[in-house]
């Protein structure tokens, strides 16, 4: 009898331990939000939030410093958009190859290739970009310097691939056989069945993979900082073509370039840059959750 209550006491004690461990994630998430907000606060004593987000000039060390990150927001969006324009079609078609076309052996090999692509450190993508891709871009488009928004977009498109491929593959594989057989029985070809039936059946999972890919591109730092040219000039919005082939700076690279030597309001402005990035990613995340919910229904 005594042994039994002892066991029960251990059981309930252990339950408390594992529960507290799990709450660490919740505490961490709140601390992250809390700490970057607290550190960003001093900025807004001096600069109002509108001129921070829509300001086009970033001169943090000038005598009358200016903290406008509109240019960085634009660069983040431009590189992300171009990266997904390149990466999403390739990613989705590769997923179709893996899930529908290839033999088991080959699809396992391609999946493994995708896993390694996901595992390669981002700094190596940046290094590869500056050593090989940037000179090629400079050559092909006759630029003096190959570190441009477009170069960054290409590197980001490589990094978006694994997210899109692996999640789209699972979404396609989860489509029940009955749906496929129905379509085939109606006389559709295999390709028609894939594009008209399977993809529309798996659309919420596939859409979620695209959105996660966007999040990945938006948040990437080290690969981008090496290939984007780091220019603080406000991007020319009337000639996007020229803009893509000139240097720029994103939200993430602004932080990593300047944090170490910053202080005071300047440092607060970098944390505020992080807050803006965090807001972008959180909104994206909420959309993803909605998309997934719809998929479950």
């Amino acid at each position, binding site marked *: 009898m005594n042994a039994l209550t002892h066991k029960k006491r251990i059981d309930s004690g252990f339950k408390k331990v594992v529960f507290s461990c799990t709450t660490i994630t919740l505490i961490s998430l709140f601390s992250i939000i809390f700490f970057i907000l607290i550190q960003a606060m001093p900025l807004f004593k001096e600069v109002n939030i509108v001129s921070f987000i829509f300001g086009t000039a970033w001169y943090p060390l000038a005598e009358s410093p200016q903290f406008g990150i509109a240019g960085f927001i634009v660069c983040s969006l431009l590189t992300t958009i171009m990266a997904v324009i390149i990466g999403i079609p390739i990613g989705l078609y590769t997923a179709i190859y893996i899930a529908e076309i290839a033999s088991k052996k080959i699809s396992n090999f391609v999946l493994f290739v995708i896993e390694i692509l996901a595992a390669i450190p981002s700094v190596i993508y940046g290094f590869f970009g500056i050593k090989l891709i940037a000179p090629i871009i400079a050559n092909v488009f006759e630029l003096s310097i190959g570190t441009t928004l477009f170069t960054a977009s290409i590197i980001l498109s490589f990094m978006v691939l694994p997210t899109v491929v692996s999640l789209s593959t699972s979404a396609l594989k989860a489509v029940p056989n009955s749906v496929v057989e129905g379509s085939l029985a109606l006389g559709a070809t295999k390709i028609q069945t894939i594009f008209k039936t399977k993809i529309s059946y798996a659309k919420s999972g596939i859409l979620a993979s695209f959105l996660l890919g966007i*999040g990945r591109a938006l948040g990437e730092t*080290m690969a981008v900082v090496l290939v984007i040219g780091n220019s603080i000039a406000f991007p020319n919005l009337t000639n996007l073509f020229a803009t893509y082939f000139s240097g720029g700076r994103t939200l993430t690279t602004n932080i990593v370039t300047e944090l170490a030597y910053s202080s005071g309001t300047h440092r607060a402005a970098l944390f505020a840059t992080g807050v803006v990035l965090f807001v972008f990613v959180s909104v994206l995340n909420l959309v993803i959750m909605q998309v997934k919910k719809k998929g479950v229904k």
Partner: protein
Amino acid sequence: MNRKIKDGLQYVLIHSAAIICVITLFSILFYILKNGIDYISLDFIFSTYSATNHGGGISTMIMGTIYMVILTLVIAVPISILSAIYLNEYATENKVSALLRFAIDGLVSVPSIVYGLFGFSLFVSTLNEYTGGYSILSGSLTLSIMILPILIKTIEEALITIPNELREASYGVGASKVQTIFRIVLPSCMPSIVTAIILGMGRIVSESAPVLLTAGMVYRMPNSIFDSSRTLTTHLFQLVNEGIGETANQQAFATASVLIIIVVILNVSAKMIANKLIRK
């Protein structure tokens, strides 16, 4: 006929996409290893980096990386195993567990640079007295939080695959819940947990932005976890970014090659363990 052409075109596109992925990977691997492998020698691996002539090897960065990997795993692995146990073995579907799952999903989506900012603010600045400021400890604490959600998710997925009959059989012979978890459930999914840990190691080795912001840039041999240290990734970044010294380029390629070799070995071994599992 029209349909055939359309289908054929799609087949071509589908195959090309897969080929592009494979070519992308192999051109990265080939380009970096081709330019880096010749510079790798025992001397390069085991000698220290010298600031005076910007030459030498990467032994201190390898040590920094090893410190970082071990300390991060020591912090993150127990917490994530226990959390996964809670979520799969104890949690009922209620608001609390929904909130916890929301937090885990939220942490996954936080960009690494934001983890860097957080680690810099909390561990490097606020807790400066206890962590040594820029240090391996600050870096590891930051990376632990970062890999926690992924470890929890993969370990939980492993726990889910253990059939309930096993647990019930264990209760049937009088074992308590704790005994069942530690003697039956965890051992049965040990290989999956090991795979998750190996992939976690890969992530720690690969990470750079948060490390730069929390562990600093000191290239000397770390004496303790309270010292600042470069890892292989942040060293590569520094070599490329500053590019000082005659051999900076070769050093960068060689360091990148070492990183690639480590990452590929980790992934291949994780794959081998996973494959063994399937064959069973």
